[in-house]
């Protein structure tokens, strides 16, 4: 399999994850589309270096989260970009209005966190173990634990307030 084919397979495998990351780091569809493309572009640029490294998911999360973190809002007229329909979750059979409402609340809760904590909560919700979160973020496992405990408290207090 050639480089392009391998890369396409990786992106297809993680397209849902990239979607989730872009929804957390942006607040509108245009920005989300830009960020999605930027993440894919950054992953492509670093694809060669990744192939010599260890875990694919570590590399993918690291580059995607770093790109989300350093996103700079564009100014003025938006440039034309590739139109992708992936920016909306389609209503599947299990879709209901309650889920939509919960999704909205989820975005609100995570959106209220600072940029660093957003990355940590994404990894936590993705079911990553502290060791892997530590590898992706560069924080020690103890620090990951402490920060996640604080984030949970923050979210809990917000939930109680609301």
């Amino acid at each position, binding site marked *: 399999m050639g480089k*392009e084919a391998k*890369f*396409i397979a990786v*992106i*297809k495998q993680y*397209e*849902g994850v990239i*979607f*989730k990351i872009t929804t957390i780091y942006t607040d509108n569809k245009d920005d989300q589309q*830009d960020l*999605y*493309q*930027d993440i*894919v*572009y*950054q992953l*492509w*640029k*670093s694809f060669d*270096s990744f192939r010599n490294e260890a875990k694919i998911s570590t590399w993918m999360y*690291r*580059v995607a*989260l*770093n*790109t989300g*973190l*350093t996103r*700079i809002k*564009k*100014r003025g007229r938006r*440039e034309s970009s*590739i139109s*992708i*329909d*992936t920016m909306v*979750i*389609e209503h*599947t059979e*299990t*879709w209901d209005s309650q*889920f939509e409402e*919960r*999704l909205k*609340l*989820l975005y609100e*809760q*995570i959106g209220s966190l*600072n940029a*660093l904590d957003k*990355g940590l909560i994404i990894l936590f*919700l*993705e079911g990553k173990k502290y060791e892997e979160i530590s590898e*992706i*973020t*560069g*924080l020690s496992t103890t620090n990951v634990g402490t920060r996640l405990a604080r984030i*949970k408290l923050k*979210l*809990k207090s917000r*939930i109680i307030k609301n």
Partner: protein
Amino acid sequence: MDLDEIKATWTQMSEQLEQQKKLTDKIILEMTQQKYRNKFRKINTFETIGAVFSYAISIYILININELDTWYLLTSGIITLGCLLVLPVLVLRSLKKLQGVDLMHSTYKETFIKFSKAKDHVLFLQRLAIFCGFLILFTSMPVFSKIQNGKDLFIGTKTWLWYIPVMSAVLFFFARWVYGYYSSITKSAETILNDLDQ
């Protein structure tokens, strides 16, 4: 919505997304093309246009510097030149640094620290540039009046009677606003950075 519900919703969203893979090979390959990256570079456009404009004005002042024949006109000219020549370079350099953060090899923590510091520097310089813009308004009026009309605003007119106090007051309040705005923006980032060092 409690934490368990957040996690359940996240899982449900993941399942929904798994069912609707939409990216085609063509779209993915298009996204890897450099031309689509170009739009991100355009963030520098305003700063670059500003720099070209600043250098054009600087050259004009430098060609006519001999016209500034008193100490205060010369001082005004030098301050104007200083702002016009130095600031655009600093702003462009700081933007380059901001966009040059290594996203591939840095960890999330390293990226956060580097990016926060670079962003902090850009914000500071952008505010400083706005402040200098007002300072230039203050210093360039007598300079251009002399160069273009041969007229010294401070001699034979009463302009200075209102010009100096009004512009000083504007500069004072503007500087206070710049400082206040900058402090509030950087405070939250500083708190997280200090927290990370612990």
